[in-house]
């Protein structure tokens, strides 16, 4: 039997002000899957993502590729799980695109020549060749998003978690970014409100609402369940509504 690459076991989390963000969540994700976490604002999607590489830690267990997420394993876990944050200005904190992409490999204490080759490959994968010397604040929003993705790819993670990957993007940048994500071989987790992108990329959808997991199943059947979607502040994607 296949072992899940991500195991979340009875995970609960409350913020310091007492707000319950996750309420006894359990789920398994298998290698190669592309899973969409959907739900209304405040459903707990981002909070769940942040548990995957130990940025937050609540009650319950998260196991990544056989390793429990705990202080002793954080270094290994963070090499396995890359998170692309919603606002690229949070993710790109260095002076140049090169430095940001090199940050992960350098944190992994890799040799300089290995860092350079990883940065070069990540730039190519993200379609950002020639931008390495640019300052992040001189990039367009779409370019910043691609640079953020490259900053994760250089660590060669087995799991890539993307928080609202297409928010604030114009249609062309969005399309290109989705194509980019589609081409990645890693296991992918998307936390988003963009139902069209979930339909396009994900083979499985997990619906969260008020910190609870309310549905988990095959993407097409969940996304086309109008009652389920609307009762949790979501919508059936237009492409499914218009489908014959």
């Amino acid at each position, binding site marked *: 039997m296949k072992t899940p690459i991500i195991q979340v076991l009875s995970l609960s989390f409350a913020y310091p002000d007492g707000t319950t963000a996750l309420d006894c969540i359990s789920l398994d994700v298998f290698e190669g899957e592309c899973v969409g976490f959907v739900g209304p604002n405040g459903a707990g999607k981002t909070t769940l993502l942040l548990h995957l590489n130990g*940025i937050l830690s609540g009650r319950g267990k998260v196991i990544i590729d056989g390793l429990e997420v705990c202080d002793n394993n954080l270094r290994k876990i963070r090499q396995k799980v*890359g998170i692309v*944050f919603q606002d690229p200005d949070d*993710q790109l*904190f260095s*002076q140049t695109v090169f430095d940001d992409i090199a940050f992960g490999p350098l*944190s992994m204490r890799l040799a300089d020549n290995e860092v*350079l080759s990883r940065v070069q490959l990540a730039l190519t994968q993200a379609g950002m060749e020639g931008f390495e010397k640019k300052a992040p*604040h001189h990039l367009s929003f779409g370019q910043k998003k691609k640079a953020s993705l490259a900053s994760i790819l250089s*660590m060669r993670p087995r799991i890539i978690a993307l928080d609202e990957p297409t928010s604030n993007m114009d249609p062309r940048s969005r399309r290109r970014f989705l194509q980019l994500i589609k081409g990645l071989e890693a296991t992918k987790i998307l936390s988003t409100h963009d139902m069209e992108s979930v339909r396009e990329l994900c083979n499985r959808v997990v619906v969260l609402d008020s910190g609870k997991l309310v549905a988990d199943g095959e993407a097409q059947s969940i996304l086309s369940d109008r009652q389920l979607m609307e009762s949790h502040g979501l919508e059936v994607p237009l492409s499914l509504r218009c489908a014959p």
Partner: protein
Amino acid sequence: MDLFSIDKYSNLTSPIHRLNPVVSLVSFLAFIVVVVLVPSGSFVPLVVALLSLSGIALVSRVPLRFLLRRSLVILPFAIAIGVFNVLGKGAQLVMHHYASVSLAFDPTGFHSFLNMLIKSFVCILGMTLLVSTAGSVRLFGAMQKIGVPTGLTLGTCFLSRYVSVVADELFRMKRSRDSRRAGRPSWVEELRSLGALIGVLFIRSYERAERVYMAMCSRGFDGFGVAVAPSRASTKDVLFPVLLLGPLLISIFVEMAI
């Protein structure tokens, strides 16, 4: 918005730009220390220092206009401090009366005032040249290499990265405030809303700092500064401090000998 594009010429190609950043940093720092130590009243070494920097500026192809504009920023501060050297100091004071105000001037103080102005200008010109040729990114790497504490290097790094992001946020908030304003506000209202803007900006910056820290941690940050190490200094690099400091030191010794 790009508030602090101090290193916008750092991508030029010239022998000065190709220097090892550690060599550049240490050479310019030593140069500044020597300039500061030039005895008050000695002007020849300062002229030599200015000529050396002008030569470097010409070789580096960084526009002189840009260098002057950046360097002259220091003058108002230098004047504000240096003016006390002229007023009411020294053994031979000359009294001047202007209407009902009497001021005591020290003629010898004028020399030290001028000396201080030139020194400040030379030092800031040196710093501007350093940042314009080495570039802030390579300089941060060099700072780390020479043992500047990681917290200080990272803090400077973040300041230069996020100052424009924070300024953009402030301008967006101000625009939103102004678009909801009818009529000219009194200065009390203006101050009150400015206080609120600054408060909100502080909270937002604090929250952003937390998110940036999370992004860093998620890529394995463990408190140590990370940067690709600068390449090793070559023999050519070693010539630079000799050329930068040599004429200045010789002029100081010659003046002291005379």
